[in-house]
């Protein structure tokens, strides 16, 4: 893993401002994404995954605001830039050529009253004005063929395509301008396992071909374990653990990661009784002073309520848990 860094996220915080008070949906998020890497982000519903994705691509909608942090992007050519500080106009030039996005619901993401092909050509021609109409259409055809859709479906309207086709065409669309980074927010939740497999296999093959990096968000940890190079586990707006897939699966450090892993019964391995994670996630509007997972944590103790544990490197991964705090007497018990 010696690839150069593509994206450096540093202390990113995102708030939702509501009349009832603001909720910090992403809090002090830091990580580095390397070129060509697949970073998985997992966590339960409401943990801030989508918020993170939209913040990374600077696409957040009111009432979300980036309240702190930097997102430093390293283009292949040129100086690193902080996306947070960029103007909308400057960003627009980077969009899709460098940053593309695939969202969860393909039906909602395609303009229902535009033909599929037109949704390709407008972005192609925006970023490459030299492309004429026919050439753009040609290119759109190549793109959809890449994901196993016949180019003669280009004149179709989105509602005339099956769910799987729509989802795949979104992936093809994301690759239209050969981006450096594709962020994917649960791109396969709405399709069934067979289709999911097909789509992910395609993403991997295309990644091989084009070398883009992926930030892949899902709540399905078992899927990420197969797919991602590294995985970040989010809980209540924070990354609680980040590390390679293998490490996370075999040696989860954070009690939450462990609980999450054990929420997925195995397909082949011997069965045992699993219990999931009891309780429900905290209210982000009213954060606890200590570890947000404390109330649900089987190993919680007094120290957990004091302060939010910082992310620190433990063995191969980074964990935010007092159990791994060298100053914590309980820590040794586990480590």
């Amino acid at each position, binding site marked *: 893993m010696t690839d150069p860094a593509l994206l450096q996220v540093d202390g990113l915080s995102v708030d939702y401002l509501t009349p009832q008070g603001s909720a910090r949906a992403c809090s002090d998020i830091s990580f580095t994404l390397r070129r060509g890497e697949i970073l998985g982000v997992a966590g*339960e*519903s409401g943990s801030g995954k989508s918020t993170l994705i939209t913040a990374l691509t600077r696409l957040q909608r009111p009432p979300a605001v980036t309240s702190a942090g930097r997102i430093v992007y390293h283009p292949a050519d040129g100086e690193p830039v902080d996306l947070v500080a960029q103007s909308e106009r400057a960003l627009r030039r980077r969009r899709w050529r460098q940053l593309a996005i695939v969202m969860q619901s393909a039906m909602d993401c395609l303009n229902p009253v535009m033909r599929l092909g037109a949704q390709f050509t407008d972005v192609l021609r925006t970023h490459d004005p030299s492309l004429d109409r026919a050439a753009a259409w040609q290119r759109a055809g190549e793109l959809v063929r890449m*994901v*196993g859709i016949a180019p003669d479906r280009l004149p179709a309207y989105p509602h*005339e395509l*099956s*769910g*799987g*086709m729509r989802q795949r065409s979104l992936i093809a669309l994301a690759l239209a301008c050969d981006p450096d980074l594709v962020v994917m927010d649960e791109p396969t939740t709405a*399709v*069934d*396992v*067979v*289709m*999911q*497999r*097909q789509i*992910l*296999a*395609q993403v*991997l*093959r295309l990644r*091989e071909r084009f070398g883009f990096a992926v930030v892949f968000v899902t*709540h*399905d*940890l*078992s*899927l990420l*374990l*197969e*797919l*991602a*190079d590294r995985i970040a586990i989010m809980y209540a707006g924070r990354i609680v653990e980040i590390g390679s*897939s*293998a490490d996370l*699966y*075999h040696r989860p450090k954070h009690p939450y990661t462990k*609980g*999450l*892993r054990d*929420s*997925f*019964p*195995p*397909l*082949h*391995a*011997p*069965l*045992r*009784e*699993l*219990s*999931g*994670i*009891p309780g*429900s996630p905290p209210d982000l509007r009213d954060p606890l002073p200590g570890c947000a997972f404390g109330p649900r944590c089987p190993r919680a103790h007094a120290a957990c309520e004091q302060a939010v544990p910082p992310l620190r490197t433990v063995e191969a991964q980074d964990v935010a848990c007092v159990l791994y705090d060298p100053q914590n007497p309980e820590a040794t018990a586990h480590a």
Partner: protein
Amino acid sequence: MPDTPVPAPRGTSDSVAPVLEAVGVSKHFEVRNRGGNNAVVRAVENAGIALHRGRIVALVGESGSGKTTVARILGRFYAPTEGEIRLHGRPVAAGGIARRDYFRKVQLIFQDPFGSLNSLHRVRYTLGRALKLHGHARSRREVEDGVIDLLRRVNLTPPEQYLDKFPHELSGGQRQRVVIARALAVRPEVLLGDEPISMLDVSIRLDVLNLLAKLRDEEGLALLYITHDIASARYLCDEIDVMYAGQLVEGGPKEAVIQSPKHPYTRLLLDSSPDPGRSLAAGSASEGLFTATGELGEPPDPADPPTGCRFHPRCPFAMDECRESFPERTEFPDGQWVHCWLHQKGRAHLLAPAPPAQSLKETRP
């Protein structure tokens, strides 16, 4: 937490009479297709399913394969186009058993716990109505006691705390448990669960699965569990039936089906299901059956299904027979059965060694 092995499935399906049984049911929907002409969607074709006391049958299959339709036929939400439903061996069609009496025996649990509870009614009302409707409680006292008892049975404790809550004050898992409690209120013998956990957050799904297992074990309910997720089916069920494009293609004891699938579609399903254990079992990656997953093709159009075995256009082993007619049922000694020409034609060896499927991820240098 100690790793306690799940008890092995008890009894076999043949030993006792099924509580609820679908015999050769089909369901066709009249729809209007794009040209504005009428078309028939063959959502379910000649399916048979038997639910036994104290056992859970899982029905798996990809989207649109007809699972929900089967559940709704069993729940008498749809009348089957063909075939019949038998409750304790008695056909229930037209006049056989009154709807009210039927619902007393068979209850359906919906996928979406957010939608299946009326947001304007308190838990007390929802459960109380179910009790009163079937005469299980009359006075206020009885209703209150009945509701408390129900809440306790679905592990919502202390029950008093939940009595007067509105659905939006409950978490997803709690809501699904209220839904189950409502189904239990009529004291059914059969529960039909249509993807009862798929809308729940990952961390709380197991809770509900464990509750269903408890109901089977402690109350001897017969259960149908519909899911996409084979892993959870394996975790919960005794028996797995696989459905493809409206047809039941394979079934049998769960471990048999999962460890040695006899139908290529079951293999595809298993290969497609994420399994962290598999991919991370270092170096064991070998060729799967469906390597070129990209060229698998689209699922069939239920309004115009392929002839013969409906899986043939996507099947790597497709033979001429497969295109012509639907194969007979092949039974195996351990209770597994399959509809596949490979077995009829003695080519089963093609499937025989079930290698651990290929990992999605290439091992990168």
